[in-house]
């Protein structure tokens, strides 16, 4: 089909100079100034977040440069582990009522590990067919996209589960007293939690390309890829993200709801601790 397409003008990547970036950062400063002026009280957080993103992205750029030059499996594994542990921490941070002890961290981290890593692996070996499969140019961005989205899904789903279990204590125990087992007693809350974790990616797929160009496609187009290739990659990523988020939320909600009950099927809200 490329034969009929007009020869695309050679688009090449325009390198950004530090000057370009500082121009863009002026906008953030302006936003912070406005926030101060209007007493929104978020100027500190805007500036800190912007500074964090600058430092983190520069560091990641450096690290990736190093990784791409080596293609060493242990180093890539280490990087993946760091990404996972930060995501696990982030999921825990976003819980209003989180599980006490190692579970608070473990449920999020394990479910993200199971879903993101297996979906990434599948994509690398079967779908894209990268050789060797751990080639960092493919593995790290893919895993990052998956982890980032799965993280949101898992965080929302778990937060929903624990918050509603807390609020519906009376109903859940009434079901237990009526002789229902723990899975029946938490069924409606579980379903709601799972749905809430899946809504963002469903919405993203539904409006993809109509409202905004998704991030990966934008990046590829800016970097000079043909739009159709960019669209195909975006589609692939969206499918992977949908699967990863869905499976991750399911595992998290299953483990979380199991943990809400003990071996005598008692509702154990004392296993939750309130954050902040």
């Amino acid at each position, binding site marked *: 089909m490329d034969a009929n397409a007009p020869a695309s003008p050679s688009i090449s990547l325009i390198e950004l100079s530090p000057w370009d970036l500082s121009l863009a950062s002026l906008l953030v400063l302006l936003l912070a100034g406005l926030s101060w002026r209007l007493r929104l009280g978020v100027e500190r957080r805007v500036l800190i977040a912007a500074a964090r993103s600058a430092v983190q992205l520069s560091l990641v750029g450096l690290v990736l440069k190093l990784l791409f030059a080596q293609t060493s499996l242990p180093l890539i594994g280490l990087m993946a582990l760091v990404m996972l542990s930060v995501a696990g921490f982030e999921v825990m941070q976003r819980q209003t009522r989180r599980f006490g002890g190692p579970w608070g961290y473990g449920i999020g981290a394990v479910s993200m590990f199971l879903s993101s890593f297996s979906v990434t692996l599948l994509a690398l070996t079967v779908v894209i067919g990268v050789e060797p499969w751990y080639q960092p140019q493919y593995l790290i961005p893919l895993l990052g996209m998956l982890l980032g989205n799965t993280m949101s899904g898992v965080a929302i789903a778990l937060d929903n589960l624990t918050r509603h279990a807390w609020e519906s204590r009376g109903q859940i125990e*009434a079901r237990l007293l009526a002789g229902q087992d723990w899975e029946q007693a938490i069924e409606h809350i579980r379903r709601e939690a799972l749905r809430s974790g899946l809504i963002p990616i469903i919405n993203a797929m539904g409006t993809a390309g109509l409202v905004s160009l998704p991030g990966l496609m934008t990046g590829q187009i800016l970097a000079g890829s043909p739009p159709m290739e960019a669209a195909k990659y975006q589609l692939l990523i969206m499918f992977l993200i949908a699967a990863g988020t869905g499976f991750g939320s399911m595992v998290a909600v299953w483990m979380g709801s199991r943990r809400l009950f003990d071996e005598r099927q008692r509702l154990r809200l004392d296993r939750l601790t309130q954050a902040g």
Partner: protein
Amino acid sequence: MAGLRLDGLAHRTLAPVDLALDAGERVFVSGPSGSGKSLLLRAIADLDPHRGEVWLGAEPRSRMTPPVWRRRVGLLPAESFWWAETVGAHLPASQTSGPDSGYVNDWLAKLGFAPDVLDWSVTRLSTGERQRLALVRRLAQRPEALLLDEATANLDPVNRDRVETLVETYRHEQEAAVLWVSHDPEQRRRLGGRAFVIGDGRLEPET
């Protein structure tokens, strides 16, 4: 039918309790608020972690799955919670239609309800109606022992008498052991039987 026996049952604020109820016996428990009466009933129904064993006749609770235990030893909490849209959806399906529905309709009539109350939306119910219907809901699972937590606390005298009569009828007909938490001394005197008080973290006979 079988008696109910508490064997060294203890929770956070209650010293171990040994108490045996014969089949068909009613025993009252009272005590100041916060003394742990409700927690005692919750422990028997196995809703909270606690120590001790409970026997239904010759069967220990630990040998039964929790859903079976909670069906056979029915706890009626002081506040009733409803999870479905209509009243009827909270009852076992076998009790609202088929040969057994006669019982439920009879109980509803004894508490002053028409059978169509089963189709009512739960949100329509007043507190008192909820409390009475919660009793029907509990009886519909045919418990062999009943744990009542302030079953008549929010009711006017007419409905209080209706509930008392229904519980007594069920107790006699099914020979069910009934452990009744009640703060109302009038009620305890009126109905009679053994009565206990929880004070200072222990269960003692009422004097």
